[in-house]
């Protein structure tokens, strides 16, 4: 087995961190493009929740591989946990508020699970 020079693992961590930073920044950019270009509230909500959270997680992984200290990694894991816990809740609240105030075109929803004719306790809907 060949001898690995001492700086190999730090260089490898830097390379992986650079790749993670690039991927995360590109996903955040994609989220921005989607938030500007998509045509309805739910489509924009999709773009803001999914690529944005993954992009932020990748950026934080890149930062953790770059700083390489355990206290920093613990706090970054806390940020990731907060993002993963709060982004679905925020998206759910936004979409529900949009539905209740009539900002969602119901013809776009192919399985319309908020349809009051399907379920007994639909929200504020028919008659």
């Amino acid at each position, binding site marked *: 087995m060949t001898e690995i020079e001492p700086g190999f693992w730090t260089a490898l961590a830097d390379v992986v961190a650079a790749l993670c930073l690039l991927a995360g920044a590109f996903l955040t950019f994609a989220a921005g493009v989607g938030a500007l270009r998509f045509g309805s509230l739910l489509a924009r909500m999709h773009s803001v929740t999914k690529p944005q959270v993954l992009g932020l997680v990748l950026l934080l992984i890149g930062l953790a591989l770059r700083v390489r200290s355990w206290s920093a990694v613990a706090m970054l894991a806390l940020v990731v946990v*907060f993002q993963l816990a709060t982004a679905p809740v925020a998206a759910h609240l936004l979409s529900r508020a949009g539905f209740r105030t009539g900002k*969602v075109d119901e013809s776009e929803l192919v399985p319309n699970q908020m349809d009051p004719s399907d379920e007994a306790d639909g929200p504020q809907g028919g008659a």
Partner: protein
Amino acid sequence: METVMLVVVAVAAVLVAVAALLALVRIERGPSMLDRALGLDLLAAALVGVIAIEAAWLRRTETIPILVALSLVGFVGSVAISRFAAREPAEPDARDDADVGDGEERPVAVLRVEDAGEDDGTEESPETPEERP
């Protein structure tokens, strides 16, 4: 190695800054308060991303608690908007169909008439013939 890292950090910072600008455009353009809440959410995420990129460039750990605080503040903002500011009052010049309670037909809110000609015209109802020229 450092020059490669400089290029990577510059490209990543430019991408995240452009994402923040697009979020600002969405906040300005509207059309409802919920879209602005989405834009604010994305803006907070872009801010966290930029601070993370800067900390990764300088290998500093002092700014990491800012990330924890910002990720919570953005959540509180969007939840507050969706709970309390989603039902915005009717503007007398922009919408005149305030008859909400007419049975099955839930009226799609006409929020800003001058945006209806753009690419995102799916949620404004285009058929309000009494206010079309």
